[in-house]
């Protein structure tokens, strides 16, 4: 398609271009293609839980919105409601419905629904390569004609069809509603058109959302209508249900399904054929009740070898021991001492608790190599589509904790960053489930930096020490989860999750995602590590560190049985637990920790709240009251478990 100028084709409406569609259909990749702005892309539903905004140069600075996946309207979970609100509350000049070409039926069901809203719209049939690989043959022109809107086949990962899509967005127009519902419903819709307040979508689309019981629409209407008007709407909906002898949502869905079936028969030359071969077999084996476990063990073993041994021992040994310890730090220390005449400034920069010797060395020499290897391995796992398959294997464990297997996603993402994983708990359906998941994340899921330090320290002790740490963390997770599930009122929702196919990760996406995360890490962590260094330096200078050490001695040396120097690490752990863990790493490097002390210290600090950013995120998602309650529980609990473990291991003969 030859588009002379995307800008000249642009629609005259005001507002943004919104990318909407089912979860895991490639909206974020399209967003990148249209705006050039990076958005995290993975092979599992729920990667996007907030709206991302970017500016498209092809449309003369028009904003493009990347939205969370929307499975159904009425919207259910929090992230679906965010996407649904776009339609009602955001001025939208055009909607790009991104659909999975190999799941044509599901795609068209949503297309029909969006078309009824009267917004200028384009259908991007994405993943055409996968559809063709599965034998699906489509007639986009037939679809376009029957739906009355542009239908553009795309392969977002390679950029195929993007230029045509840009042109089509510029020329997008409102599609005609192709459906007629039973008389009782049409009559109620006609009445609604008279009373509904003006919205960015058509009155008919708004009326259908209301009749189908969409909670976002209900909230939107309640904010604009008075109580008698709302009562009138409710009565009308009840009347329609009585006349239809069923829920309007079911009747509407039935009409849409019948239309889509007819459309499929005309526009789909050949249907989906299940794939065979090695990938298909591996896909099955990853969720097999027996073989799924050895595969999981192999994946975890590979992760441990790459991050725990190669990253935390080999790379750190080289960078921290040789590069920083033998070359950079001594050289810098001598230069600063020569150039700066004030002693305390020299100490602040290259002293025991100096900005460079502590803050930057911790961040760059100890943590950076570890999280680089972790983020790389994690990106590969994310893009392979393996992670959601763990929902199948882990469901029973999460069931005991009042959750379902879907909770494995935020838990595993927590291994990358607990703060971001707290946001991902939005994919869980009930408030109770989100609260339980946030508590478990804050308590017993170590983030990448923490995990790397733990692997490095415990790997240096013995594999048994690592197993004890893993065992304690899992026991805490299950026991606290089980107890919290008993105490928190409410019911568990049943598991229903889509399992995306295993895919070969695209190298460019893995590299870009790893680099973006490392950039974020450096921006987030380095300032906090520097701040922590200054704090420790000041506390040391004014003598508070000694007082705090003496004050904390009964707990740190008495109860946990650690050397007095470990007090400083735990104080740093209140700021960021990986900062504290790195302090313990430094103690171990100086042979100040025995194997028993190393295990106890690692368990205790892992059970700390992750960091200040995580606290702020928990407060944003769950409120300050719950955040304070969690904090008040977690810190004493961490010391109680650490001390209890010390007694147990001591009794078992550990020293």
């Amino acid at each position, binding site marked *: 398609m030859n588009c002379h100028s995307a800008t000249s084709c642009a629609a005259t409406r005001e507002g943004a271009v919104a990318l909407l569609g089912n979860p895991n259909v490639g909206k974020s990749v399209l967003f990148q293609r249209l705006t050039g702005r990076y958005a995290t892309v993975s092979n599992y539903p729920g990667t996007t839980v907030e709206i991302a905004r970017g500016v498209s140069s092809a449309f003369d600075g028009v904003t493009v919105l990347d939205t969370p996946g929307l499975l159904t309207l009425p919207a259910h979970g929090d992230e679906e409601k965010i996407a649904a609100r776009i339609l009602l509350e955001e001025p939208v000049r055009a909607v790009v419905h991104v659909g999975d070409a190999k799941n044509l039926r*599901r795609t068209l069901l949503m297309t029909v629904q969006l078309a009824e809203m009267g917004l200028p719209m384009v259908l991007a049939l994405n993943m055409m390569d996968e559809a063709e690989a599965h034998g699906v043959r489509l007639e986009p022109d037939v679809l376009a004609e029957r739906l009355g809107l542009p239908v553009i086949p795309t392969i977002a990962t390679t950029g195929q069809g993007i230029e045509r899509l840009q042109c089509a967005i510029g020329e997008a127009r409102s599609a005609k509603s192709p459906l007629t519902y039973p008389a009782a419903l049409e009559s109620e819709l006609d009445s609604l058109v008279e009373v509904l307040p003006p919205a960015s979508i058509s009155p008919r689309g708004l009326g259908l959302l209301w009749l189908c019981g969409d909670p976002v629409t209900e909230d939107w209407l309640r904010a604009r209508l008075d109580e008698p008007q709302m009562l009138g709407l409710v009565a009308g909906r009840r009347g329609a249900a009585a006349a239809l002898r069923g829920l309007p949502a079911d009747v509407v869905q039935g009409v849409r399904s019948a239309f889509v079936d007819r459309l499929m028969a005309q526009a789909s030359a050949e249907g989906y054929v299940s794939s065979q071969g090695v990938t298909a077999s591996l896909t099955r084996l990853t969720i097999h009740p027996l073989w799924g476990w050895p595969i999981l063990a192999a994946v975890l073993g590979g992760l441990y070898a790459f991050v725990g041994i190669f990253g935390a021992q080999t790379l750190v040994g080289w960078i921290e021991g040789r590069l920083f310890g033998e070359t950079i730090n001594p050289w810098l220390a001598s230069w600063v001492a020569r150039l700066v005449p004030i002693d305390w400034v020299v100490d602040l920069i290259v002293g025991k608790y100096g900005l460079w010797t502590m803050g930057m060395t911790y961040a760059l020499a100890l943590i950076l190599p570890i999280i680089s290897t972790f983020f790389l391995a994690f990106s590969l796992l994310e893009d392979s589509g393996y992670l959601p398959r763990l929902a199948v294997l882990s*469901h029973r464990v999460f069931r005991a904790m009042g959750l*379902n*297997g879907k909770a494995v996603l935020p838990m595993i993402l927590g291994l990358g960053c607990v703060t971001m994983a707290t946001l991902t708990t939005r994919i869980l359906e009930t408030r109770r489930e989100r609260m339980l998941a946030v508590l478990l994340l804050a308590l017993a899921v170590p983030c990448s930096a923490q995990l790397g330090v733990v692997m490095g320290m415990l790997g240096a002790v013995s594999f048994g020490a690592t197993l004890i740490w893993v065992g304690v963390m899992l026991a805490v997770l299950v026991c606290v989860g089980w107890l919290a599930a008993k105490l928190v009122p409410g019911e568990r929702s*049943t598991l*229903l999750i889509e399992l995306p196919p295993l895919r070969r990760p695209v190298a460019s996406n893995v590299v870009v995602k790893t680099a973006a995360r490392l950039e974020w890490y450096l921006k987030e962590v380095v300032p906090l590590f520097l701040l922590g260094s200054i704090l420790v330096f000041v506390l040391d200078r004014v003598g508070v560190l000694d007082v705090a050490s003496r004050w904390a001695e009964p707990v740190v040396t008495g109860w946990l049985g650690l050397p007095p120097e470990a007090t400083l690490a735990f104080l740093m752990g209140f700021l960021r637990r990986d900062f504290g863990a790195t302090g313990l790493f430094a103690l171990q490097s100086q042979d100040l920790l025995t194997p028993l002390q190393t295990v106890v210290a690692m368990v205790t600090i892992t059970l700390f709240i992750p960091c200040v950013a995580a606290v702020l995120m928990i407060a944003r998602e769950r409120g300050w009251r719950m955040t304070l309650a969690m904090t008040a529980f977690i810190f004493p609990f961490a010391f109680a478990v650490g001390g209890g473990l010390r007694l147990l291991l001591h009794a078992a003969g550990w020293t």
Partner: protein
Amino acid sequence: MNASKVTCPLCGHRFHSEARSVCGACPLAKGCEFICCPACGYQIPDTERSLIGRWLAAGFRRRATPDAAMPQTLADVPAGWSARIADTGGASAPRHQQLRAYGLEALTWVRVIQHRPVTVVAVAGTELALEAELARRVVVDSLRP
């Protein structure tokens, strides 16, 4: 046992599983994992109480060939078989709508891949995992290998 009525495999007598009319006189009744037929005394494993009995019974059920004419739920369809959906209305309203959005609606054929640890089904290009509790709410009316 799920069924309120039990048929004795030895004498064919049908009785309520919870009646336990003969248990009162038995000194081993406390913690017993059997149901005794009140007519002949035959011991039938109580799969509600016996963990091992439940696992083994579930294993044998999976190997059984289903009666293609008998309406049942998705949870009863053996792995590797396809089933035609009759109704998903037994699920909660949100789940019902989500199942329909995924393509699990009346007259659609789905293939059951496995039941353990959770039920996994394939419908067109989508693979879905759903737990047994939800699979039991999806009624099917026809099966094929």
